[in-house]
């Protein structure tokens, strides 16, 4: 039995991880959202305290399993568990957040030291200019001493999120040094 590839979404509270999974997986998504009682930190009505989960069914009967990690530091144990079985990780950031670079660097380093060593792509999930994205990407690369793909995507736009997954799979393919099944995300 071959297990479906697992991709995990990371990022701060409120960045859009749950939204991204619902965008990608629709009614197949399972959420662990509860009322947010910490309104001082975020005005969001709900927050994820378990792990969001969804399935994307690809062509030829294949599946992709997507997980969303809670963003708050007190749920770091969930993040570590999710990181431990992911083949790919998507880090969502908001460049208006002064801690965007620091938190992205931290997650990339965590991925590197994780047993599964997932391939990482960073997604700028809030509007930002091309130059802001370039600057961020350069800063990120210099901090982690390697090139990390940074792309902009609206987590509510399915086409854009599928493009992100497509890129991630290309990277996973290179890491494995063998072609992953040619997943045509555009057809899904």
């Amino acid at each position, binding site marked *: 039995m071959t297990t479906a590839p697992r991709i995990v979404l990371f990022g701060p509270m409120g960045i859009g991880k749950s939204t991204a999974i619902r965008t990608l997986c629709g009614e197949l998504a399972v959420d662990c959202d509860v009322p947010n009682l910490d309104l001082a930190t975020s005005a969001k009505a709900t927050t994820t*305290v378990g792990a969001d989960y969804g399935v994307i069914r690809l062509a030829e009967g294949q599946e992709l399993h997507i997980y969303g990690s809670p963003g708050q530091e007190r749920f770091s144990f969930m993040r570590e568990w999710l990181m431990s079985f992911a083949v790919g990780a998507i880090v969502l950031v908001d460049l208006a957040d002064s801690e965007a670079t620091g938190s992205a660097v931290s997650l990339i380093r965590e991925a590197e030291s994780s047993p599964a060593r997932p391939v990482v792509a960073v997604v700028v999930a809030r509007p930002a200019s091309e130059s802001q994205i370039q600057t961020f990407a350069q800063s990120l690369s210099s901090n982690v001493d390697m090139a990390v793909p940074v792309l902009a995507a609206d987590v509510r736009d399915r086409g854009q999120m599928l493009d992100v997954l497509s890129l991630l799979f290309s990277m996973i393919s290179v890491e494995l040094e063998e072609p992953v099944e040619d997943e045509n995300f555009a057809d899904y």
Partner: protein
Amino acid sequence: MNIPPEKISRLTEAFRRFTSEQTDLRASMLATIDGFEIASYCPDPSFRSQNLAAMASSLAAISRAITKEVAFDGCDRMLLESSSGRIVFQPVQALGVPCTICIAVSAASLLGRTLWALDAFVNQLKQMQDS
């Protein structure tokens, strides 16, 4: 955590009375549904109460997702068994605050008595008047 201090104080007091009445108690926790500690008890100095509060809320959320998946009507309680003892998780609404209670008892404890005591405490919390 935006819960009025007066509510925290009342819940903490009720929780302390409950834990003082229990035998075979290894640890206990009253946490908000989103993983913040309201009150806890554990004689072990290495106990990390904030971790248990977050874990209890995660487990409660995953349990609810599981019961929803099999079309059950909610999750009333969850039980973990170990050779060292048992851990019981139970959701409760206390003074209008959605919470999770977690208690860990030794292997020597009687499960029935533990569950009865927990039910009694949950009912007590439900009946506390939200002023």
